[in-house]
């Protein structure tokens, strides 16, 4: 009984297959070691209604101690509302929020051991950098000497030692972000919330700060929940990602999970780009399944069964552009390929994206890594074939 179960579960399947890809970025690999099994926060069936609109709809999550958790979703999907409920600025209409086993749903924000870094940074304009960082410590009535020590330590942590006496308006965007981070870490919270941490930075600074922030969080060892609508940011920084849409959580998993085994079509399209082919299942067995796709003009074969109920035959087959291959000769076999012409080529430096129009009129994206300089490649209007390995495709529903 257990044997076919594991085979039919695509997510475990791919995770076993791709141990090398788990190390997508060096930070992802390093971080996993500090994540512990112990649960720090539990969100139980939380809902939030504004007037009539349901902003957060029956969300349940568990956050483990030490992990960086990202809430990823489009605009208006309720990410900020959920985060603000964790911080205590909004009261959940239903459900409970447990921090270290204690229900904190009704605790006011100033009594929670949770600190938040705001999207606008919210630095106090009339205080210097040092006073900003000391603000939270002063509320705890710590002795003066200890406050001074802790402020110095925080400034050192974010590499801002020389800026203690400055006012926030005398800092650049990146420096303000560091100060905001230092201020929210100064009280050594058990949970740190980041709302769009890179939202106010330009693209280059953003990638720099993503790695630096992760490094700082790692050094402090704080558990962190961040909100972002940038999937790349979520993938670089987080150990686990939750995809939100219309107030509810569609999928929770590691970056590899959500990218390689998306739960449905929406996740596949939201996280990265994907080629989708509509089709109908014609054969479904334990070790393979065949899908008839008029859009491809050919049948699609997948190397595992998907155990569908008999009445739900319509599915989507998703293939990522980097797993779609391009060749000038006709591939062997009767499955997983189509003929077409190159309609457009986007040269992006590191890789090129080919837009291939198949004979059936479907536009397929293929990305090729530019590993050699100026090699022979298909050009505009060339006749090409797209194909993929039977292990590369994923079957999805709406």
């Amino acid at each position, binding site marked *: 009984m257990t044997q076919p179960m594991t085979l039919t579960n695509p997510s475990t399947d791919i995770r076993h297959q791709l141990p090398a890809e788990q190390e997508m970025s060096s930070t992802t690999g390093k971080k996993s070691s500090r994540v512990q099994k112990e649960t720090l926060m539990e969100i139980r069936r939380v809902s939030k209604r504004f007037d009539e609109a349901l902003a957060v709809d029956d969300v349940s999550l568990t956050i483990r101690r030490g992990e960086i958790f990202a809430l990823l979703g489009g605009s208006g999907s309720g990410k900020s509302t959920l985060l603000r409920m964790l*911080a205590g600025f909004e009261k959940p209409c239903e459900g409970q929020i447990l921090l270290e086993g204690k229900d904190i749903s009704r605790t006011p924000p100033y009594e929670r051991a949770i*600190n938040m870094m705001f999207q606008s940074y*919210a630095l*106090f304009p*009339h205080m210097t950098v040092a006073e900003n960082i000391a*603000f939270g410590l002063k509320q*705890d009535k710590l002795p003066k000497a200890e406050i001074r020590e802790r402020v110095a330590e925080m400034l050192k942590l974010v590499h801002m030692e020389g800026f203690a*006496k400055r006012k926030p308006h005398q800092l650049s965007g990146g420096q303000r972000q560091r100060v905001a981070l230092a201020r929210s870490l100064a009280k050594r919270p058990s949970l740190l919330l980041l709302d769009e941490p890179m939202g106010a930075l330009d693209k280059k600074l953003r990638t720099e700060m993503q790695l630096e922030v992760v490094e700082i969080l790692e050094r402090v060892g704080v558990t962190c929940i961040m909100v972002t609508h940038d999937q790349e940011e979520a993938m670089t920084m987080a150990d686990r990602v939750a995809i939100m849409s219309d107030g509810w959580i569609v999928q929770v998993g590691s970056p590899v999970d959500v990218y390689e085994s998306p739960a449905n079509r929406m996740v596949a399209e939201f996280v990265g780009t994907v080629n989708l082919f509509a089709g109908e299942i014609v054969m479904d067995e334990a070790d393979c399944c065949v899908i008839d796709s008029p859009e491809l003009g050919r049948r699609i074969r997948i190397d595992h069964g998907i155990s569908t109920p008999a009445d739900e035959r319509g599915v989507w087959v998703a293939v990522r552009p980097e797993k779609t291959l391009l060749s000038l000769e006709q591939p062997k076999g009767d499955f997983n390929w189509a003929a077409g012409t190159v309609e457009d080529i986007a040269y992006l430096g590191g890789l090129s994206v080919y837009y291939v129009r198949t004979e059936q009129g479907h536009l397929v994206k293929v990305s090729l890594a530019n590993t050699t300089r100026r090699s022979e490649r298909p050009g505009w209007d060339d006749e090409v074939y797209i194909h993929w390995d039977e292990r590369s495709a994923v079957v999805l529903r709406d």
Partner: protein
Amino acid sequence: MRKPSFTTVMLILGLLFLYLPMLVLVFYSFNSSRLVTVWAGFSGRWYIELFRDQQILNAVWTSLRIAFFSASMAVCLGTLAAFVMVRFGRFRGKTALSSMVTAPLVMPEVITGLSLLLLFVHMAQLIGWPADRGMATIWIAHTTFCSAYVAVVVSSRLREVDLSLEEAAMDLGAPPVKTFFQITLPVIAPALAAGWLLAFTLSLDDLVIASFVSGPGATTLPMVVFSSVRLGVSPKINALATLIILTVSLATFLAWYFMRRSEAKRRIAMRMQQEG
């Protein structure tokens, strides 16, 4: 010589329109004649007479005290009203509150004055206070209408303040009251100062309401000036006006000077930090 441009001419005309009357007034305050409009040579005698006139000096002192206390009280009440209007979520009667707080702005002064007078008279009959009208009643009356101005000034500033500043303070462990005093107040301090100054000048300036609610014990400066002008303009009033203009200009200049100096100091500190 270059021909002055149209904008320069208009600027000069505008400034003349604004300041010529004051210049004339200052000029005639040094007139030795008793008649205000006839020039009879330079003298400072009206200044000396002004400082001998106990009635005017008393009125100045009364007016200043009333203006100070009214402005301070109005800033407290106006800020509270503004905070409730801007920061509190929807509650019953919020619209009624905000329109009633701002109503005194458009209410004719005669009506405000008359209604306050009636109130004070009835209160005196019912609870025996205020036994006689004077500084206290003027203070209450001025606070009433000055609060409205302060509420408008402060609420417009408060609306601009990023709500997440206050949320950040609470997030860092400051309860709401502490947040208000440590974060909100310092951030809106310029608006409070502006509101206080506005209330101060409005109170100093008010004639109509003060005439309604004052008693024999308290005469404010506008009341003295107005009644003395009805008996014929005395050059003493010119001298008084000149002194007031001088005080105001000096205060403005000092404010500008200190602001510039602190700005320069901060810039130097910044440069030193960059080098160090």
